[in-house]
């Protein structure tokens, strides 16, 4: 958790506005990891990729359950105080804008874009992780960047 906790947390936060929902997904991810006795990893990067994939699957399952009405959507734990969108005066508002822009994307390209832009994975690595073709990943990244740029402009 020390090595990859923040990575998994960020993945969860790109799916949920509510920290509580992210926390549930985060816990489920590491619970699966802790209880997966039969799981062996080739190396650290394999372990990280596994955690990311499991976290994203758990988040998607939770979202589907929410949309079906099986699980109530947690209220977003956001401040109701008016905030400035000027990044220089209130950088936190800019961070929120960036996260909101990510959450506004479909998935894909949300996760591949995060993995590419922030985690620094290459398209072949993302393709292997998500079991997609390399060029599909390029396509996701291209579309995702375009959508993100429009959202943030």
């Amino acid at each position: 958790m020390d090595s990859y906790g923040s990575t998994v947390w960020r993945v969860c936060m790109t799916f949920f506005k509510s920290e509580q929902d992210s926390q549930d997904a985060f816990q489920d991810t590491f619970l699966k990891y802790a209880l997966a006795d039969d799981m062996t990893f080739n190396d650290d990067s394999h372990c990280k990729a596994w955690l990311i994939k499991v976290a994203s699957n758990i988040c998607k399952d939770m979202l589907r359950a929410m949309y079906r009405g099986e699980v109530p959507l947690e209220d977003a734990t956001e401040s109701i105080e008016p905030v400035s969108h000027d990044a220089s005066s209130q950088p936190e508002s800019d961070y929120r804008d960036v996260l909101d822009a990510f959450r506004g994307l479909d998935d894909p390209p949300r996760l591949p874009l995060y993995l590419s832009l922030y985690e620094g994975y290459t398209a072949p690595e993302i393709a292997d992780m998500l079991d997609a073709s390399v060029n599909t990943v390029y396509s996701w990244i291209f579309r995702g960047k375009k959508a993100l740029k429009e959202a943030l402009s």
Partner: protein
Amino acid sequence: MKNSDMDARIKAAFDALELPDSVREKTLATIEGEAKKKINRDCCGADESKAAQALPLTEHVDQNVADSIKQVSPASPASVISSKRPRYGRVVLAMAACLIFVVALFGVSRIGSNPTAFVDIDINPSIELQLNRFDKVIGVEGVNEDGRSVVSNLSLIGLSYAEALEKLTTSDALAPYLSADSFIQVTVSSDNQDQEQFLTSQSEAQLSNLPYRGSCHTASVQMHGEAHAHGMGCGRYAAALELTELDPSINIDDCEKLSMRELRDRIEHCHRTSTDTQSTSDTESNGEESCAENSCMGSESESASTDDARNSDNIHGQRHRHGYGSHHNQ
């Protein structure tokens, strides 16, 4: 907004998003609790409930019920079955058979006219062949202006794929676009895996007969649609995506005018630049930044070697089913 500005904002936003200590502690506590439960289960064993004793089969049958079941209903008078069937029954049967025949015929003709596979040929002209399930060409389209110019002088409809590909690649219409160092990229897209493999092997066979360099790839039908939405053949689009990813200073519209050979040269250059930078630099740098600094644009002095350099970066090997498996021909 510049790409670099957006990247900086994204980095700053996610850098600020660290795992809260409270979440870490709660998660560890939850895992510990679950682990203890698991250990208890393993050590002490499940407290199995006693096996339910099998109840003796009751032999007593409610006589009243049995009697009611066995009660024989009064025989109904035998119905008189006429030995003569009504004439209109045969007519209805005949009409139904005709209708089925017509529907089947319509269905077969529909099957023959629906494209089940697409093959894009990218050189600088980009041309699309649409094939039915019998691997016959049922549609030809020039994806870009040069492609439209080429196909306007060719008749490929009705030919088998192998015949059409040979006719196209050896035609006078295409000859002005081919030179000794041209690169022909063939991309097969089909939801039918068998057809995709067949067309791929046919493409490889034809490419091996040509005096030009080429390669054959597969791509998803969705990717094919996206490429054409951008006015590009699949091969060009895939190369453009890769190049724009490696060199953010290039945008996808710039790639439309480049030949396949030029695109591949620039991609090779970016990969080589990235490899050289990583081997000499101590700081973490990704391929995009390195390539942008050295500017992939305008670098045409390097001759395109084999695809080895590109393949060496594809650390996960070639993928033949999920799209963009490479079948190289030199």
